[in-house]
């Protein structure tokens, strides 16, 4: 099988596993959002943990599909872009699998009772109704806001209304948590 066809198989696989059917209507939309959140949660030990890799090893560089824009193939699906900004921090796209793990088995060695933090899907807090919402998560390793808040991968609940403005953190401040170490 060629490299290209492998890539496409990967995309198809992604589409199959990540996107439930959408029929329109408010209830269905909510159901879709919930299902997407569950799928998202199932691939992370907790909200904020690096997701595991939900597809087969296609022997491609991760950035071929998960670059700064992602890749869409009509009728098949969308592989989301990476939220990591390679120009800041310590990210190096060549070492994706230093944090993102394969799932080579569904088994556990021993049962584990850890219950992870859930994603907070409520709107980010605001000082008042017209104030920009704060960022409720760590920005480190999520410098590319557009990866999740714009484009194909953005869920409606967190989709940005003004993606043309590129300096997001000029108005949206990172709120680490209500309590932090000093």
């Amino acid at each position, binding site marked *: 099988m060629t490299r290209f066809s492998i890539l496409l198989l990967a995309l198809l696989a992604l589409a199959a596993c990540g996107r439930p059917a959408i029929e329109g209507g408010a209830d269905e939309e909510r159901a879709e959002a919930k299902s997407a959140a569950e799928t998202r949660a199932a691939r992370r030990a907790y909200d904020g943990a690096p997701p595991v890799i939900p*597809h087969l090893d296609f022997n491609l560089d991760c950035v071929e599909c998960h670059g700064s824009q992602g890749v869409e193939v009509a009728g*098949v699906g969308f592989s989301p872009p990476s939220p990591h900004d390679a120009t800041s921090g310590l990210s190096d796209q060549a*070492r994706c699998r230093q944090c993102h793990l394969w799932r080579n088995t569904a088994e*556990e060695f021993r049962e584990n009772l850890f219950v992870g933090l859930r994603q907070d899907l409520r709107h980010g807090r605001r000082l008042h109704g017209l104030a920009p919402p704060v960022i409720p998560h760590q920005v480190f390793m999520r410098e590319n806001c557009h990866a999740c808040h714009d484009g194909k991968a953005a869920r409606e609940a967190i989709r940005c209304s003004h993606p043309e403005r590129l300096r997001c953190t000029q108005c949206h401040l990172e709120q680490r948590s209500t309590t932090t170490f000093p």
Partner: protein
Amino acid sequence: MTDITRRNFLGSLGLISAGTLITGCGEQADAKQKSKQDEAAMPADLKWDKAPCRYCGTGCGVEVGVDPQGKVRAVRGDEKNPVNRGLLCAKGYHLPGLLYGADRLTKPQLRQRDGSLKNISWDEAYDLIARKYKEAIAQHGVESVGIYGSGQWTVYDGYAATKWFRGGLKSNNVEPNARLCMASAVMGFMTQFGSDEPMGCYEDFEAGDDFILWGNNMAEMHPVLYSRILESRRRRPSVRIVDIATRRTPTSDLADVYVEIRPGSDLALANGILHLILKKGKVDASFVAENVAFMRGVEDLAEIGYGAFGDQAEHYGFKDKGRPSSLEELKTFLDDYTPEKVAAITGVPVQQIELLGDMYGDPQKGTVSLWCMGVNQHVRGTWMNNLITDLHLITGKICKPGSNPFSLTGQPSACGTAREVGTLCNRLPADMLVNVPEHRAKAEEIWGLEPGTIPEKPGFHTVDMFRALVRGDLKVMWVQTTNPWVSMPNLNRWKRNFDDGRFVIVSDIYPTPSTEAADLVLPSAAWIEREGIFGNTERRTQHWNKMIDPPGEAQEDAWQIVQVAKRMGMGHLFPWPENDWHRPMYEEYRRFTLGNGKDLASYEQLKQERGMLWPVVDGKETRYRYAAGFDPYVKKKSGAHFYKAKKTEEKAAFWLRPYHPPAESPDAEYPFWLCTGRVLEHWHTGSMTRRTPQLHQAAPAAYVELNSVDAAEMGIGNGGRVKVSSRRGEVVLEAKIDGRGRPPRGTVFIPFFDENRLVNRLTLDAMCCISKEPDFKKCAVRIERA
């Protein structure tokens, strides 16, 4: 890739079910995970506090999020920590998993006659331990008891153990598993600088130009540090990474130059580089004249041996004897290491040897040498440590930002506890030794003990301790924070039978093959279930608070030791209130370090800071030891001063060290080299990481990496079952061909994390002649289809 290709391909895909392409295990694992999300907390509910990672010696900072019910829900990389600046690796991100395995040990358990374990109370357990120690000492003397901990002991645990043993029981049979891991680095630094641990710090990764990795798969074992080097190269494309290794790894994939070397021939390669430096006139003559003393030790192979054959198979006590040498003698000595001769021994092309000579010899380039287990787990590991440092001494590339020999550690407190507290059988805190009268006197003074309390004779080193246990010379052994019945070499040698008259106590957080070998199993508190201090590879001491309660009746290891000491009438060693003993214990320990270049930060400062690099003087840390302008102990205006090297007039010792072959090499019967080691996903024997679903699911079982040509010749395919056997044992596992690690022909690699596929049944208990650290990297095996 073109759109046309995509469209054509998609057109042909219409009939294929997309679902068949995804891994079945992905969906199954998704389903399992879902049920665990229902009662999860929201981010705003969490309380965050800092801690160093529980796993490797890098010492990354994490922040731990605890919910109002006292459960850990998340961790995040600590952006304020200068070690990792927010980044973690897969193990670090999945830290919470280590706390919540369903089979956590929660009660003390005593082995019954039928082999089962029965719950007993802590009082019964402590009384029994105290009685067993007393009986053994009364009948067989203090050499018949031991305690075996690790580089995962916190400073508190190690300090309690060493004080109880040396100051209470009057025995030096205190050892850490760091003997299997860092002892060669300790002896390297001690023989050259009279003081343990590196002079540099992680800022070398941004300051250096050339990074030479000696047998060190950093991409998997120190991933966050390798990321720092890679980031350095991305910002400064002139940065070069050279990977000297016996197999290709993910580290090699990202290196500029891969130097493939025959197992054990690194000694010859280092000497070959020295040869070129001298030949090409690249010696930094003024630095050498001012700061270097040449030394030469015993080199006779027949006299030294390997610690595994003949009489040495029961006890290995070889001692090196140094004598002064000179630069002139070095020149003659290096005649044996011309590039051609070195190429013949190492298999490294002359061009690559010359490249390395040019890199080390270039005064314009900052050079950082990095090493870990490849160099340390080596029958001449101390020699190899000496040689790497020699390369820096001869070129003056030391004690400067971006130019240092930098030994990396494997465990979170190998430095902080095993090396600094001194839980090796011959050591006392802060570089002191039990066989130096003034050192014992100082310890006795700080501990308030009668002169002459601490015995002069060093205890058993680890391998000899286990040999003594099997032989019956050691009657009682307490194991904490380590899993020796997986991690020791030549495992078949240490099999236990419960009628053997020994008493083995194992404190751990999970059942392991070591608890299966124990007469008494004690449940320990893990990581942030207790207050702790770790010291990392770059001399950074990091403190964390207790954040959650341990499960059931689990207790911290130091506390367990103190309780037994009290029952043996040694409560005077631990005179602090039981509800507030961490601070006074640390403050007492800190007295050892002050004023001698090992100064630790105050307790208050450690509570506040993201760790401090010792020596900490006037509240300020030291980034570069022995370096003028950085180290407050150096009074010179510029350059370096090796003020701890008292044996060589405060000059660093340059040791001439020859090439010796490995203890066991392939032959007709066992034609392959075996190397063992770790993988990114698992930490050491896997008792914690294997219980973390995401880590286990990524690397569920050990395998044997084969060269693809070798495999084809034997008719072995990827995933095929293979029996690997040595003169000592055998193991059956799956073959992995052209995976993340690619060994050269005639070589195989097996990771040691898997207690169901124990590679250490194959390894040999041969050791470094000076450090007594076993060589897990080289023995001979046979490969067959199973």
